[in-house]
Structures are given as C-alpha cells and as structure tokens.
C-alpha cells in the first residue's frame, strides 16, 4: 500500500480510479432512484413521503462515515505525518458538511408532512445538527491556518477530540429528548422495515458511498496539486532574489 503513498503515484492511481468510481456511483444511484420511485411501495401511514427516507438516511450514514474517514486520516497525519493523510482529511471535511446538510434539510422536508413543523428538536436530528457544526468548525480551521502541515495537525487534533465527544453528544441529546422513531433499520433484532423497502435504501446508500469516494479522491487530488502549486510559487519567488538584485531601481 505504501507504494501509492507518495503523492505522484497517488495522482496516477487516482487518474485511473476516478472514472470507474464515478461510473459505479452513477449506476448505483440510477438503480436506487429507479427502485425508489417505481418499485418501493408507499408507507401505509406516511404515504409517498417515505420516499424522502431513501435520501435522508443514506445522507446521515454518509455524514457519520465521512467523519470516520476523517478520523483515520487524522491518525495518519499525527502518527505518520503523511501529506496524503493531510490531504484526505482536508478533502473530507466539506463533503461531510455537505452530506450532513442534505440530511438535515431532507429531514426537515420529511418532518413537515409527518410532524407538521419544519424542524423538531428531537434526538437524532439534533445530533446531526451538532455534527454539522463540528464540520463547519473544522472547515473554518482549515481556512484560517495558511501553512498546510500545521493546519493538518491542528485539524487532526480537533477531529480526534470530536470523535471522542460524538458518542457523548449522542447520549446526552438522547437523554435530553427523544421524539424521533427508534432506529428502525439497525434494531437489535435486525431490520424491521420490509425487504422491498430495505433494498432501495441499501442501494441508495451504496450509490452515496461510491459518490463520496469519487469526490473524495478528486478533492485529494486537488489538495495535492494546490500544495505543489504553493511550493513551486514560493521557490519561484525565492529564485527571483539573488541574480536580479543588480538590476533593481535602475
């Protein structure tokens, strides 16, 4: 695995992988959408509005999964000080924020017909909102510190502190209030929803995951190139110094 760890090899690998990943993501999403709209039955209570679940739940999973990817990249930064881990970390934060935002908005749009209000301070939506705020904080941190390696270490520490706190947040928010239907998919007794509804959900989740990895690879590639641009610009600016000193102020 280490062979791909150096940025140049990674760029070559990414260039090959990205088209395949993008294709797979598009295919999975297409199948998922088809199943959602043409095959899956409506819910006896919620009617067609249950179709928003196929968007809302995968987005929530992706928001969480993205944080896990960021945490492992953070370990990569702190333990092996590897530039690729820095790039993976920085690339994941905006994507995580995007997925949690989709989760929040679709949750609100799903909640309106079901609970009558745009937003309800229930346990799971609130935890996702806090996760969204953590993502925004991380993005703010990345933008404020200019020097890439230093920013990566700072973000890594904040990510790890976050990952320790997320279960605590989850528990305290649950304690604070619970209105949301209990976790119907991962109930201890296995999924409670009908298989005809479960399949579209899993395929949509697969589509989202593939989409995430495609975008993540592309964002890592951007990050590597922008660090290279920064390095080249600095050396080019420095190169200007010695030999042209003679011609100044002429």
């Amino acid at each position, binding site marked *: 695995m280490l062979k791909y760890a150096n940025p140049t090899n990674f760029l070559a690998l990414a260039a090959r992988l990205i088209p395949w990943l993008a294709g797979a993501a598009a295919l999975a999403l297409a199948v998922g959408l088809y199943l959602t709209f043409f095959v899956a039955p409506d819910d006896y209570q919620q009617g067609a509005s249950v179709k928003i679940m196929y968007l809302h739940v995968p987005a929530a999973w992706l928001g969480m999964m993205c944080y896990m990817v960021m945490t492992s990249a953070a370990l990569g930064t702190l333990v092996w000080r590897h530039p690729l881990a820095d790039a993976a970390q920085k690339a994941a934060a905006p994507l995580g924020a995007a997925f949690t935002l989709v989760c929040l908005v679709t949750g609100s749009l799903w909640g309106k017909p079901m609970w009558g209000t745009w937003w309800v301070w229930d346990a799971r939506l609130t935890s996702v909102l806090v996760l969204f705020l953590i993502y925004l904080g991380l993005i703010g941190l990345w933008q404020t510190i200019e020097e890439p390696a230093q920013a990566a270490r700072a973000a890594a520490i904040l990510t790890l502190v976050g990952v320790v706190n997320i279960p605590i947040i989850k528990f305290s928010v649950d304690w604070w209030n619970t209105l949301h239907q209990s976790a119907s998919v991962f109930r201890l007794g296995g999924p409670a929803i009908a298989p005809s509804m479960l399949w579209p959900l899993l395929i949509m989740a697969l589509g989202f995951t593939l989409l995430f990895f495609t975008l993540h690879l592309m964002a890592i590639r951007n990050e590597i190139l922008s660090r290279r641009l*920064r390095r080249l610009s600095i050396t*080019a*600016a420095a190169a200007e*110094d010695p030999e042209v*000193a*003679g011609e*100044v102020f002429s």
Partner: protein
Amino acid sequence: MPQTEVRPPKTQILQGISAKALRVDRGGRAIVRGVDFEMRAGEALLVLGRNGAGKSTLLRALAGFLSLREGEVRLNGGAAEATLAEQAHYVGHADGLKAALTALDNLEFWARMLKGAAGAGLSPEGALEKVGLARVGDFPVAYLSAGQKRRVALARLFVAPRPIWLLDEPATALDVGSQAKFAEAMAAHRAGGGFILAATHAPLGLVDAKELRLDAVRPREAGDAA
C-alpha cells in the same frame, strides 16, 4: 530612464520645510526635545542617534502619527493647506502589505489610496520593474522574502509621487545591490526637487546630506541644524 512625472504648477512645488523647537512626548516622557532643522527642495536630512534616541519618534511625529507637544513645522510652498503628511511618504518597519494579496494588488491599492495632487506616478508594473520584482508581481506577498517585501514597500514611493520621503531604516533587509540602487533612486528624487528625511544606522550613500544628531540634543539646547 525613469518615466518623467507630470510637473505640478510652479506655486504648488514644495520649496522648503522648517521645524522649530520640536518636542514629542511618548508615555509622558519627552523623547525628542528642542529639535530644529531647515530643508530646501532637493536636500536630504539624515537623522542619526543610538537606538532609543527618538529617530523613529521624530519621523512618526512628522508623518502625523504622533502629536507635537511643542514647536511647529512650517511648509514653504506645496499644495494649498495640505499637511506635511499628505505630501509625504512614510516607509517604516512595517511594510503595509496584505500578505493574502499579490504585490501588484497591494501597489494598485496604495496608488489609488495615496494619490496626491502631484499627478499619477509609475504604474504598479513599472514600480515593480524599478525594484527588480517584475516577475513576482502576481505571487501573494506571503510567498515573498523579507527583502522582497521591503522592496515592494519601497515601490510604493514610485506609484504615488509625493515630494517628502520619510524613511525609517529603509536599508534593513535589503541586499547590497538593492541598497546601491536605492541610493540612486533617492538621488533622482532629490534631483526632481524632492526631500528625504531618513533615520538610519547603515550608510545610505546620500551625497552631501545634512545630519541631525538626536542624542546630542540636550534639554534647552538648540539642535545643531547645519
């Protein structure tokens, strides 16, 4: 040959500066006291003295950042009721550059912000060419070295022509080549009727410049202006 600047009308050209018994306090203490000097167009004044003698304080007072406790500065000629500060450039320890912007953006901004009555100066590209930084014009200033930042700050003198140059240790962070060339630019400014007041340790290569020793100034004793 530097681009010839547009000549302001005769009456507006600054003929001279005269300072009488200047006193500047900081932190309740008289840092600079009893300072007098006379300058005519084309002259240079070297403000000398050990660290803490008040060189920077005097220049900052002339630039209008600090108020004069006693004494006054009179301008002879120059734009109607324009203060000394509005006809002067000040190059201090800080370069006045925004690290996030490129050198060209910074100079473009200061050209419009400090545009005096004396018409337009060099273009930002021309000014950067003059300080030998033409090729790094579009890099963010954050990527430049201290010496390069210093030269971008000095380029400010050329984008908005103002008769008086207040220079506080202009030669710091400049390599020998740049210092020699900057001396030539100062000579050109003086030839065009400009004034230079420089606080410095390093020799600036100014030809027949007057000297104003600050640590020689004792309370109640007129500074030696000649």
